[in-house]
């Protein structure tokens, strides 16, 4: 008798986490990302409040250097990940990258056509949204 253990939707959500090792690596990545975000926010506030050189340079550089943490932990997660999880992540990265490129190049044309001017940093938002959408699509495909 074949055991019926087709995963539920919640299992698919948990599919992000993969094996126990994957979960550990993801927690490590999230912890680094949280730390980086806090430092980035603090640096932004300090620079907005008119901190002066040379301290302004130091404040600006700290989050840039600290970004090595999330980057390295994500690469480690990807290298050690369960192969299906890795496939899902790679498809999501490709989708996110494409979304960023399409947004950055496409919005330039829209701006020339009369759309409101936006900050170049908004491309990051498009990449993140693309990454999340890509993840959901890949999870759905392999469920």
């Amino acid at each position, binding site marked *: *008798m*074949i*055991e019926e*253990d*087709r*995963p539920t939707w919640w*299992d*698919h959500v948990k*599919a992000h986490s*993969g*094996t126990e090792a*994957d979960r550990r690596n993801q927690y490590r990545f999230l912890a680094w990302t949280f730390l980086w975000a806090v430092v980035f926010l603090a640096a932004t506030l300090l620079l907005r409040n008119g901190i002066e050189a040379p301290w302004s340079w130091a404040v600006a550089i700290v989050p840039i250097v600290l970004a090595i943490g999330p980057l390295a932990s994500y690469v480690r997660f990807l290298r050690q990940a*369960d*192969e*299906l*999880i890795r*496939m899902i992540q790679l498809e999501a990265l490709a989708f996110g990258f494409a979304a960023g490129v399409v947004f950055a190049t496409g919005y330039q044309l829209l701006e020339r056509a009369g759309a409101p001017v936006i900050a170049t940093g908004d491309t990051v938002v498009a990449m993140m949204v693309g990454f999340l959408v890509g993840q959901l699509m890949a999870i759905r*495909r*392999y*469920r």
Partner: protein
Amino acid sequence: MKNRLRVLRAERAWSQAVLAERLEVSRQTVNAIETGRYDPSLPLAFKIAELFGATIEAIFEPDR
């Protein structure tokens, strides 16, 4: 790619979780392979074949 993974697993009365643990992959990977939505890497295919004491060709069959 078609495969006999579900049948082989059932013959041993293993759950997907047990098979996943033996193969050191996630249960989602086992499920995706069984349903034919994901083709395993060559190292994983060899691992599956070794676990069931069969050849890769005896477990996996290309779509024609």
